[in-house]
């Protein structure tokens, strides 16, 4: 590398300096200083965070950062947690793992959120990364305990295996016994989401016993209460423990060994689990309560007095997750016992009931906010709210960074004045200057968005539902919130105007989700055409949006910035609005699959049409494979009029193909691209553009 200025440091010195810079933002800033710093920095970046797996391609990441050791990826939009994103939408991690297997043999950490992970992915991880240490699968799906067994069997240096909230096909606890007897490096294990009734207790106990560095252990529901003492006895150094089932017939010997086991855990700071709680067993944890900083009681279905009794033992509590059984009275008690509280989450015990089943109102939250000066993060479900309560909260908790309020009935007004809650939320954004995350609910007009646009300058994520009156509301947010990264909106009367007027804002954000709003298909197309660095995706399960007039509203819209262009793994109910309709991928029917690396069998055009109507996950087939004996399908024609409405099929002009080892020229001059994308179960498929000879107009 050339040194342009005589007084600049040697590269090694710069690299050493950069190694002290850990945060992504700072690293990005460093890389923008000059070309040589960009070069040095990219060779020594070890950790990558990609907030949207479709914003960039694996290939691009690898090209820029060749020596990565740790990667974090997020897939589906947040509203996927609430069933708003249909199955099959995407978020497949296999393409990433496949590329990294070759490029990053020393990869140590993979953290994924809301992605589809298959057993094949897990097996590939186990096989490819010799020094693999950390696997975090947060709200992922698509894999089974067989895949976990592969990880357990091969990853000798595994430190952390965290499956929190993932949807795992739990085939029983035998995967635990795949950890060899010589394996002792486990530091953190969270298998609390596993749903099977079976668990291999002896394998678990042996594993816990021999891993003396174990700090975090979160069991799943299948582990019975009477086994806890045994497990804790083998791991008294635990800092974070999640029980399994915490209920059984009360037996004094079980109780006393449980209490004894807990009391010998001097380092324990965090407890969770507690399924099926029997209140009589709760006092067994009292010996550790005074040191607890985090308590997750979100599965504890006991009444307020019992909850309060427990919480009174926990003066050091900083983080509490609890059901609304705690009621206003319990929160009042909490506020006097737990002065260090920083985070409070109150979940609804009966979210779909029409009448309140507990006495939990805005008062509970207000009493906590008045008495706990360190409160920063709130997630609160309740059934009524008032502006006066919100103003009180805002004035007493100016340090709030996350405020998520869910008033269960949509469009509920201030119960005292029957007015909208605009003023209340306005106070929140005005007083809480460091607010980064906000979720709105209740009756809200465009005014609340005016306040948000004016005051919420540090706001990064905003969730809106059943609110607003016109496009002006959306316009306030998009034009005013300077730090906005993620905006998710559902059931609001926001249409085309604000979106199109603020199109360039969307390139400064990670993503925008709008569902059940009033954005027209025409506007989506326009946005897609005008903004090449945005992927505009329309999700509509009732049929192709172009079978309706352009003025019709789309069902769901997901817009995100991307340097990778439109994605190719979309299911049939997702349409991408792109500048070049020739690049629209309309997936076709896969007639049969096999695991051969070169290609898969495909069906005829007729089968493909049927498949499109069937709305199954597809793969696109372009060309006549005349040089293989395995397929005798007919060539596909573009713009086929038998398909209503006529839609262009994918045509990849030669110049858009990547010319690297993934393409090879066959003797007839056709190009093949191998794309190892996978749906469950895995398929490899090919997209083959055809020569102009057989495809006029390409």
């Amino acid at each position, binding site marked *: 590398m050339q040194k342009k200025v005589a007084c600049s440091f040697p590269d090694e010195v710069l690299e050493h300096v950069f190694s002290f810079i850990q945060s992504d933002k700072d690293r990005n800033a460093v890389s923008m200083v000059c070309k040589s710093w960009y070069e040095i920095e990219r060779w020594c970046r070890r950790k990558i965070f990609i907030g949207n797996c479709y914003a960039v391609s694996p290939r691009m990441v690898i090209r820029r950062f060749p020596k990565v050791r740790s990667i974090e990826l997020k897939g589906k939009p947040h*509203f996927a*947690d*609430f*069933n*708003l994103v*249909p*199955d*099959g939408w995407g978020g497949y991690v296999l393409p990433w793992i496949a590329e990294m297997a070759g490029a990053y043999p020393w990869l140590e950490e993979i953290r994924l959120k809301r992605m589809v992970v298959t057993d094949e992915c897990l097996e590939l991880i186990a096989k490819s990364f010799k020094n693999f240490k950390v696997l975090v699968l947060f709200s992922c799906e698509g894999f089974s305990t067989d895949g976990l067994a592969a990880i357990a069997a091969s990853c000798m240096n595994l430190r952390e295996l965290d499956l929190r*909230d993932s949807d795992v*096909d739990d085939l029983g606890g035998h995967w635990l016994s795949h950890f060899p007897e010589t394996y002792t490096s486990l530091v953190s294990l969270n298998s609390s989401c596993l*749903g099977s009734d079976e668990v291999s207790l002896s394998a678990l106990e042996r594993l816990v016993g021999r891993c003396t560095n174990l700090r975090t252990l979160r069991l799943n529901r299948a582990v019975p209460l009477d086994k806890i003492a045994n497990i804790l006895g083998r791991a008294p150094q635990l800092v974070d423990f999640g029980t399994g089932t915490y209920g059984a017939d009360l037996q004094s010997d079980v109780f006393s060994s449980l209490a004894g086991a807990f009391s010998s855990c001097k380092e324990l700071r965090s407890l969770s689990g507690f399924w099926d709680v029997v209140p009589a067993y709760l006092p067994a944890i009292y010996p550790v309560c005074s040191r607890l900083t985090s308590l997750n009681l*979100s*599965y504890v*279905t006991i009444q307020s007095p019992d909850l309060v009794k427990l919480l009174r033992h926990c003066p050091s509590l900083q983080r509490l997750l609890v059901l609304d059984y705690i009621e206003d009275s319990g929160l009042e008690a909490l506020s006097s016992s737990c002065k260090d509280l920083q985070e409070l989450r109150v979940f*609804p015990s009966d*979210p*779909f009931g*029409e009448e309140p089943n507990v006495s939990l109102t805005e008062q509970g939250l207000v009493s906590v906010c008045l008495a706990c000066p360190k409160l920063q993060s709130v997630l609160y*479900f309740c059934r009524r709210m008032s502006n006066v309560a919100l103003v009180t909260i805002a004035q007493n908790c100016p340090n709030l960074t996350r405020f998520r309020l*869910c008033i*269960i009935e*949509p*469009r509920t007004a201030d119960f005292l004045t029957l007015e909208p809650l605009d003023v209340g939320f306005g106070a929140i954004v005005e007083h809480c200057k460091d607010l980064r995350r906000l979720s709105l609910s209740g009756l809200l007009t465009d005014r609340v968005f005016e306040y948000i646009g004016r005051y919420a300058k540090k706001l990064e994520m905003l*969730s809106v*539902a*059943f609110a607003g009156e016109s496009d002006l509301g959306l316009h306030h947010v998009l034009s005013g919130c300077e730090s906005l990264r993620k905006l998710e909106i*559902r*059931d609001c*009367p926001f249409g085309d105007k604000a979106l199109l007027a603020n199109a360039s804002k969307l390139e400064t954000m990670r993503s925008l989700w709008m569902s*059940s709003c*009033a954005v027209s298909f025409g506007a989506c197309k326009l946005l897609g055409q005008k903004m090449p660095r945005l992927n505009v995706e329309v999700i509509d*399960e*009732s*049929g192709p949006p172009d079978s*309706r007039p352009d003025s*019709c*509203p789309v*069902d769901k819209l997901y817009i995100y910035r991307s340097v990778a262009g439109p994605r190719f793994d979309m299911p049939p109910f997702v349409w991408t609005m792109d500048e070049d309709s020739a690049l629209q991928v309309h997936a076709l*029917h*896969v*007639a*049969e*699959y096999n695991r051969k690396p070169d290609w898969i*069998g495909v*069906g005829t055009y007729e*089968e493909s049409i*049927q*498949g499109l*109507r*069937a*709305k*199954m*996950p597809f*793969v696109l087939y372009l060309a006549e494979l005349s040089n293989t004996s*395995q*397929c*005798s399908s007919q060539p596909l024609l573009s713009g086929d009029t038998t398909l209503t409405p006529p839609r262009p099929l994918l045509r990849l002009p030669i110049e858009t193909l990547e010319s690297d080892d993934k393409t090879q020229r066959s003797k007839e001059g056709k190009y093949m691209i191998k794309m190892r994308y996978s*749906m*469950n*179960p895995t398929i490899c498929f090919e997209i083959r553009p055809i020569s102009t000879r057989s495809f006029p107009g390409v």
Partner: protein
Amino acid sequence: MSSENGKRLPETDAAGLNFEATELTLGLPGKSRVTSDGGAKLGSKRGFSETVDLSLGDKKDTNKLGQTQSQIDAREAAPGSKAQVVGWPPVRGYAKRGKKSCKYVKVAVDGAPYLRKVDLEMYNTYQQLLASLEDMFSCFTIRNFLNEKKMDQVNGIEYVPTYEDKDGDWMLVGDVPWQMFVESCKRIRLMKNTETVELAPRTPPKWSRRS
């Protein structure tokens, strides 16, 4: 919770309801819109009734605007109760909190590029389960590229429904009483006929093929 899961309307009623159900409105403030997800089980993973309601190629269940059975079902939800809104309130995995009564198993079809999940608790008999599986996979055309043959229906001569039980054995669906099957079934696989010979030789289950 709404109780319309798995309910099927006769064709004429469906046709009659469809007209209103398909009216496109913008959902002015004050009206909650029920989306094509059906809103049957809020906060839970998609249930079988939702997958079958996608009406894979089964023309009788869709009207000309492509609205699905689940939308019609949702409208038909017990009169007097509110139509539930999908994904609201925004609680994650609600079905997992406390309830253990759903029994989801994966259904794999040999040669299919995807799996489906069904909730066995939604059925009372083998007939119902197999009818649903037929619907789910009915338009799936399989091409045996070696023989250039097309096999039309998944549940016909070519495919046999089998399941893996708690002991890890692969059994023919229909062999044991229904309740025992529900308790012991871990996953279902529709096997190609050529592969089923090694299973215990029994007469094929007594369910009938839809013509």
